[in-house]
Structures are given as structure tokens and as C-alpha cells.
């Protein structure tokens, strides 16, 4: 808040005129810095519609630092002239003075002084005239007093060339009366205080308006990771649809449960070293349900359950190999096997957890990602049921087009029957990655900015809540 005195003085000036005053003129006439008046204008504006101020800009001439010095002490040439006594001055002495060099040549060209080069003891300078007229200083003084209009353009430009004057743009306010103009000022309160509430004197106070254009202070808080926010949302959708969560906290899996039990042949390219992470320690799994393992071996190598099988030499050594699971379907297989060991009851299962692929990495592929999986097992499920449940799931996501988002299908009898599930039970399932919808939702192009230590924490701080996972893929 500017000094009340200045504010009131300004208001009085404004009151006296009809068409307003210029802030620069007010400053000059009050003999204060222009910034003081600008501050007063801002303060008055903050009080409401007391005044109205229109920003104007004008050009005017101003003395440079050197020009100011000359206005005070005279031009370099006049100072040279006045320091030369009657008996003259050695040129070397003159040149030692700070203004000596420039002043000398100017005074010479004005013919105020002369040099006696042949003088005994070196060149010596003498006055040639009695008195001089320091026009440069006078012109500068005129400008300094604000009368630059009295000079001709040519004169001003010459002084500008000598770097004594410069033309500057000045911003000033044209101040006129506002709708609630008054020459007295009521002091405004910045904030409501406990004392005001206690005494009730807030009723008499005027409060300074808030600047609603400014941002608030950021709260000091923690943040959840965007991928985990989307995970929470998918989890919620499954729970709303009555799906039970599978225990997927086993990253290490045997090839048996990850591949063989799913009727994936042992020569399948997914089981290649280039696609799957194998373990060197612990390299092998032991303990398989032995009779189930025999049935799996048989259906691969000979067929059965109405299947031709793959007709190859199925090897236990291949099945024993430990890997980092390549899909959560390995857990679904364990769950379905477990289910088959009891009296069958229909189930709906889901999981969202990490899976691992020994793939070539790029902007959208990492060696590990989260797989979302849904499984329904019941008597007589149809392809129509699969499409229906997918439709419901993706509708909950707010998606209309879901064809290319993930995979879906009906588990093969060669997988289900060796487990011991009843023949008329069908199992439908679908899966998709968690990362892809999250990247789309949060507009992230490089997966490394989302997952892993290279994450951009600012992105985590700034990410919005996930009400609906992405509205489009």
C-alpha cells in the first residue's frame, strides 16, 4: 500500500481537472519519482472503481550518464578550456585529465585553444579566446528540465550521436475519475482476524479484494502412481461384476503350469529362449500332481478327450524348467485345476499382476508388464456369453470398440478335461495389458516415463484421478 498522503494528493489533483491527469506530469510537479505515482495508481485501483487509469506510452528525451555529468560540470571541451591557465599547460599534463582527450579535440575544432608544438619542454596548449559559450551544456540542461521541445531535431540527434542524449519510451497512466470517486481513502483490511470475529467490527471494515487470477498454494501431499490408479479402477470393475481375485503373487512358475497345462506344445515359439526368461537358480520345479501330469503328457503326445493331440515326444525335462511367468493364465490354470479337485461350482476369477517377456525392448515394450485377466467357468457357456461378458466389461470402462484391445477366447478341452473338470463345463477368458490403457489415459508415449525408475515424478504428482479408465483406445 502506497503512502496515504500521496494517494490523497493524487486524488485531489484528479478532482481538480475534468479530463484527467498524466501520472508522469503529476510526478514532475510533485517532485517525486514516477514509480511512486504508479504505485499510488495501483493501490487506488485495488480499492475498487475510485479512479480509472489508462496505460499510455510516450517517447521523450533523456540524458545519458555522460550527458548528466556534462549538464552538471560542463562539456569536456569547456572543462579543457577552463583548466588552461594564462601561461598555458603542457599537452602531456592535459592528456592526464579524464576529459582531456575528447575535450582537446573538440576545443581545437571550436578554435578555443591552440598548440605550440615547438615550445620548450614539449608541446604546450594556450587559450585563443577570452571566454567561451558552452552550448552543449546549455542544450543538455534544457532537456534535463523537460524542455527538450525547444531544441531542434537535428541538435538532439547530434547529441544522441555523442551518446549524451537518448530517446526512451515512457509508460504512464492517464488518470480520470472512477464511478465511486472520492478524495478520502478508507484503509482496507487484508484478512479476517479472530479479533474481528470476536468484536464484530468486521462489519465496519472494508476488505482488500482477492486476486482470483493467481494460483493457490500447492498442498504438501503424497501421490499415488498413475498405473496403480488405473489398476485400482480395473480391480473395482471386476469386483462390481462379482469376480474373485486370484492369488497371483508367484512370479516364478514352472513351464508345466505356464505352458504345458494350457496345452501349449513344447516346441511353441513362446517357449523359446528369445521370448521367455528361464531360471538358472532355482532351475527346475519339482512336485507336480503326478496323475494330472501324466494326463497332460498324454494329451500332448497322443491326444485323447476327442483330440488328435500334437503327436510329439513330450518331455518332463521341458515341463520342469522354471521361468518368470509369461502370463497370469498360469495362475488361472492352477486355480482351475484346484477347482476340478472339488465338487464343481461355477466361478468368476480375475487378476491384475506382473508378467515377464524376454522381448526386444522399445518405446512401448518392456521386459515386464501388468496383465489384466478375467475368467468365467460354468456349465454350458457359449461364445455369445463370452461376447456378452466382454461387452459388459468394456462398457464399464466406457469403451465401445474393444476388438483390438486384448485377447479373448474359450479354453480348449485339451486343457480343461485333463484337469478333471466336468465335460459340460466351459471356461471363457480374456486378457489385456494394464500399461496400454494407462499410457493412453495419461497421454504418455514412452513407457519408461510411466514404469520403472526413470519415471517422471512431476508426471506422478500432476496425474489426475482415474474415474473411468480411458474413453478410447
Amino acid at each position, binding site marked *: 500500500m502506497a503512502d496515504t498522503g500521496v494517494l490523497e494528493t493524487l486524488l485531489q489533483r484528479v478532482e481538480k481537472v475534468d479530463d484527467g491527469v498524466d501520472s508522469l506530469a503529476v510526478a514532475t510537479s510533485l517532485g517525486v519519482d514516477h514509480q511512486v505515482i504508479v504505485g499510488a495508481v495501483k493501490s487506488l485501483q485495488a480499492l475498487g472503481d475510485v479512479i480509472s487509469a489508462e496505460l499510455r506510452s510516450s517517447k521523450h528525451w533523456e540524458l545519458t550518464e555522460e550527458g548528466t555529468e556534462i549538464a552538471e560540470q560542463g562539456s569536456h571541451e569547456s572543462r579543457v578550456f577552463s583548466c588552461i591557465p594564462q601561461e598555458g599547460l603542457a599537452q602531456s599534463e592535459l592528456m592526464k585529465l579524464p576529459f582531456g582527450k575528447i575535450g582537446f579535440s573538440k576545443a581545437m575544432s571550436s578554435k578555443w585553444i591552440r598548440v605550440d608544438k615547438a615550445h620548450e619542454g614539449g608541446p604546450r596548449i594556450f587559450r585563443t579566446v577570452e571566454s567561451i559559450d558552452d552550448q552543449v551544456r546549455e542544450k543538455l540542461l534544457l532537456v534535463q528540465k523537460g524542455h527538450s521541445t525547444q531544441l531542434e531535431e537535428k541538435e538532439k540527434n547530434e547529441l544522441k550521436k555523442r551518446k549524451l542524449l537518448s530517446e526512451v519510451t515512457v509508460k504512464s497512466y492517464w488518470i480520470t475519475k472512477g464511478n465511486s470517486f472520492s478524495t478520502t481513502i478508507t484503509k482496507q483490511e487484508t484478512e479476517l482476524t479472530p479479533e474481528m470475529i470476536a468484536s464484530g467490527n468486521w462489519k465496519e471494515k472494508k476488505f482488500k479484494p482477492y486476486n482470483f487470477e493467481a494460483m493457490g498454494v500447492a498442498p504438501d501431499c503424497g*501421490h499415488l502412481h498413475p498405473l496403480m490408479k488405473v489398476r485400482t479402477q480395473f480391480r473395482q470393475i471386476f469386483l462390481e461384476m462379482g469376480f474373485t481375485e486370484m492369488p497371483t503373487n508367484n512370479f516364478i512358475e514352472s513351464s508345466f503350469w505356464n505352458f504345458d497345462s494350457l496345452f501349449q506344445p513344447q516346441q511353441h515359439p513362446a517357449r523359446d529362449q528369445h521370448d521367455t526368461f528361464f531360471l538358472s537358480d532355482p532351475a527346475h520345479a519339482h512336485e507336480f500332481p503326478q496323475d494330472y501330469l501324466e494326463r497332460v503328457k498324454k494329451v500332448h503326445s497322443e491326444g485323447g478327450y476327442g483330440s488328435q493331440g500334437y503327436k510329439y515326444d513330450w518331455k518332463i525335462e521341458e515341463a520342469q524348467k522354471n521361468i518368470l511367468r509369461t502370463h497370469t493364465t498360469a495362475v488361472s490354470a492352477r486355480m482351475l485345476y484346484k477347482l476340478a479337485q472339488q465338487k464343481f461350482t461355477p466361478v468368476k476369477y480375475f487378476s491384475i499382476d506382473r508378467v515377464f517377456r524376454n522381448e526386444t525392448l522399445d518405446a512401448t515394450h518392456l*521386459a515386464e508388464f501388468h496383465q489384466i485377466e478375467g475368467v468365467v467357468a460354468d456349465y454350458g457357456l457359449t461364445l455369445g456369453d463370452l461376447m456378452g461378458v466382454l461387452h459388459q466389461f468394456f462398457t464399464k470402462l466406457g469403451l465401445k470398440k474393444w476388438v483390438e484391445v486384448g485377447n479373448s477366447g474359450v479354453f480348449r478341452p485339451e486343457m480343461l478335461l485333463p484337469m478333471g473338470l466336468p465335460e459340460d463345463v466351459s471356461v471363457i477368458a480374456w486378457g489385456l495389458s494394464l500399461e496400454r490403457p494407462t499410457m493412453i489415459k495419461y497421454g504418455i508415449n514412452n513407457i519408461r516415463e510411466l514404469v520403472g525408475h526413470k519415471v517422471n*515424478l512431476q508426471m506422478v504428482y500432476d496425474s489426475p484421478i482415474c474415474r473411468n479408465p480411458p474413453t478410447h483406445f
Partner: protein
Amino acid sequence: MPTVGVKRDLLFKALGRSYTDEEFDELCFEFGLELDEITSEKEIISREQGDTKASGASDVILYKIDVPANRYDLLCLEGLVRGLQVFKNKCNRYQCDLPVDPMFAALHSPQTEAVRPHAVAAVLRNITFTQERYDSFIELQEKLHQNICRKRSLVAIGTHDLDTISGPFTYTAKRPGDISFKPLNQTKEYTATQLMSLYKTDSHLRHYLHIIEDKPLYPVIYDSNGVVLSMPPIINGDHSKISLKTKNVFIECTATDQTKAKTVLDMMVTMFSEYCAQPFTVEEAEVVYPDGKTCIYPELAYRKEKLSGKFINQKVGINESTEKIAHLLTRMCLLSQATGAGDEIEVEIPPTRSDIIHACDIMEDAAIAYGFNNITRTTPRTYTVANQFPLNKLTELLRQDLAAAGFTEALNFALCSQEDIAEKLGKKISEMRAVHISNPKTAEFQVARTTLLPGLLKTIAANRKMPLPLKLFEISDVVLKDETKDVGARNSRRFCAVYYNKSPGFEVIHGLLDRTMQLLEVKPARGEGYHIQTADDSTFFPGRCADIFVRGKNVGRLGVLHPDVINRFELTMPCSALEMDIEPFL
């Protein structure tokens, strides 16, 4: 899913009509395929190598079509056309002709047994190649090699000009030094040993060398005059190479998997017998085994399956007559008819459909022919009550409150380098109960993490420009070796938090522990509650580390990190950390 590229105009000519791109896309979709891309050779080269390289390339329009991985019969123009034509109610039959003379004798010595035990063969007699047919013939071999043949490891195909060689042929295995011939497109003879080093730098062939490289004997096929036909699965001989002028083609497949060898041979001959003087007719070859047993190839077996209309209706979720279903299946190259015994349908599976191994595959074809989009969507009536996995439920609840306590959630990889979990933390890898990966492509995937701490420290290092303090947490699984589990390892759910600032802030991390315990309803007390107790750990600054005890059990550790650890993670500020197991709180 393999992608097959075919020239659009050739395709339309073979189909007998032309389509708009949209019409053809629709036809593919109905047949269970996907028109992936419409492009040209020029466009592909320009995209991959730039416009200048593409300037001379052909701008004939190519359709790139995605076909299901097990539909080997759709990997070439001929197969695609036949499939789509049958879909439009046209059909043809494959048959075998007796051989002109028994030509192929496979002497399965114990040597071939050890390296590549199976061989099958057939002859395409009086074939007429054009440039397009020839290109397609070569392309199909390549596609089969890459797919069902598993990059030639399971099966390798050799095709020869029969008129340049004379049977019977001998399939044997010899020491690499004892095999010598002029390989395809070379000008002089090489021994097998020389060939293996010659092809080390061949961008294409080097990928197959490993299949036989370390074997003492290499497989080789000779004709009756000692001419080398091929050294499978690497290269054919130059002598018998086929050309546009070749009239009679001898096809041999050698394999480690006999079923696949027979399938591949069936595929080659069914696709290209179309161009023989007697279309769709193949000449048989006799294979004589070491034990004297003989087999005739190709098998071209037509199999019959019987299933009920009810089965199809129930599995698909439709209600169609037996006759309609038989008609649908016939459209998918599966000649079917109602037998009249109830709703029984007899389905004939042609040799091209090796992917059909169960009635459920027939059901899928019926669904494709019916049109997935025509199936009414239904809601399973499965009534179930949902349950959360208790460990995940606890995790979800804790995460919310830890964020509310001012900590930000990080999400790090489960795989990392040995260094991350050992040396950098001032520990020895031998002391960690870590599981080790045998085939990592980079050091980032050597082990599964045994602790969450390195991930959080790396997250800080990558975000050093962020304003201090940095307060991070993660609740996730680590993996530990565990003899009691069937796979010898188990996950352990951990909670880890770090505080990174100009001062260590042990009291902040300690306060977070107190808050966590409050959330978990554990009181600060020895015995039944929780307490912390000084501990020695090389990861932490001496005297600034404590074990966390809950109901007398050690569940984790907290403290100020050792300056060496801070340095090794390329950090510059003091840092305190907490890591604990949350499974005891279930």
C-alpha cells in the same frame, strides 16, 4: 500372427472378380482374417530405407493379410484364394498318384537318428511355373520355415529339379569334413566344415547353423550317382536347383518332428499341385526305413469327425438346423453333411487343415462362418460373490494412507542387475536368496529383486532435479528362493519408503513406521506390540540402523543409508529408508 503379402491384382484375378478395399476387408473379416495393410514394395522400401532407395521399386499394390498362427494353408496366394473361394462355395480335392518308380530311399542309419531322424518326400509332376507362381513357391517355403518349421529346427524343406538327379536317394549323416559339394548359388565346392564358416556372416543362413553346428555328423541327401541334393537344414546343392523351366519338382522334408514334417509336405504339395498337368494331383514317394519298413508320402489324409448340431449350437450360442450348420462348415473348407441320424453331422477335414485337432476347432469355424457379429450377446447366468485377495486388499488400503501421509508411490521393475541388490547395497550376491535368470539379454535382467530399496534409490537418482525433500514409497513383491515351494521360490510383499533431503530425517522415516503401525493397529510396546532395536547392516550408516520387531518377530529394518550406498546410487544427499514385510499383518 504371420502376415502374408499378396499382389492385389493377382489375388483378384485368381478370385475371378475384383473388390474395393472395403469389400475385401469385409470378406477377410468374415473369414476370420484381417487385412492389415494396403501398401506396395515401393512404399515399404521408402519407409524402411528412405525415398532414394525406393525410387526403382515396384508400386504394384500389395495386400498384407494377417492369418491365424496355425493356418499354414493360408500362407500363400494359392491357399488364400482357395480358402476364400471355398468360403464362396467352391471346392477342390487333393489326391495322390502312384509313383512312376520308387525313387526315394531313406537309409536311417543310427547317425541320422541322432541329428535329424525323419524324412518325407513327394513329387510334383509336369508343373508349369510362371514368375509369380515361382516366387510364391519360394515364398511359401520361407513362410513355412519361419512358422511351423520353427526356423528350420523342426523341419527343413528342400526342393529340387527332378530331371537333374536320379533316384533312389539316400538320406544319411556324415562327418562335416567328409561332405563336399557345390552349394546353391556358389561357383565351387566346399566341405561342410568350410560351409559352416562361410555362412557365419550370411545374414540369412547364419541363423540356422546352430541347429547342427555342434553335432559330430551332419545330415546329407545324395542321389544314386552321389550328387548332393541338400545338407539340411542349411543349404541345397547347386546341381539340382529349380528354375522357371523346371517341369518336375522333387520335394524333401527332413525333420526332428515327424508329424510336422508330414504337415509341411502336405502343405507344399496341396498348395502347388494346382499348377501340375493333372491339377491337385501329387506323385507319391516311397521312403524305406533302416529296418526295412516302407512308408508312402505324402499322406494327404482326409479325416472324418462326427459331431452333433446340438454341440455346435450350444458352444456357439446359436440355434441353427443341422443342415444349416453342415452348410456353414462346408463354406470353411470342411465338407460336411447331416447323416440323418438325429442331428449328427459328418465333417471331413482335408489335409490342408492340420490346425483342426478337436471338435472345438470345428465349432470355431462354424462360428466364423456364422459371423461373430451375428451371434447374440448373452450374459452368463453365473452367480458368484466376489472376494478380494486379502494380501492385495491390505496393499490397496495401505497405499492410500501412505500417500495421505505425504509419500509418493513409485513403481519399479521386479527384475534388476545383481549389482543393484548386492554390491551397491554393500552386500554379497551369494548371501542373497535371489533367483537368477539364465538367459538375460542385458544386465538389467540378471535377477529378480530381493528388496525394493534399489528401485526407490534409482527413482530418486533419475529425479534429482525435483525439489527436496523427496518422499517415496512402494508396496510390491520381491522374490526369494524357498525350498518348500514347488518351484523353489516365492514372492514376498514388501513395503519400502525413503526420505531424501539435506538432513537424513531418520525421525521422518521413524514417524512413518509409527503411522504405519497405527494403521495396522499395532501398539508401540515390546512383546505384543512393535519396537525397534539397534542392528548392524552394511547398507546403513553404523549406529543408525534398527530392526523392526512386531510381536517379537523381526519384520524389517530402518535407518540412515551408508554414504557408500548413497554414492553408488549416484546420490548426493543424506537418505533414510524403511523396508518391511507386510504379510505378517494379514
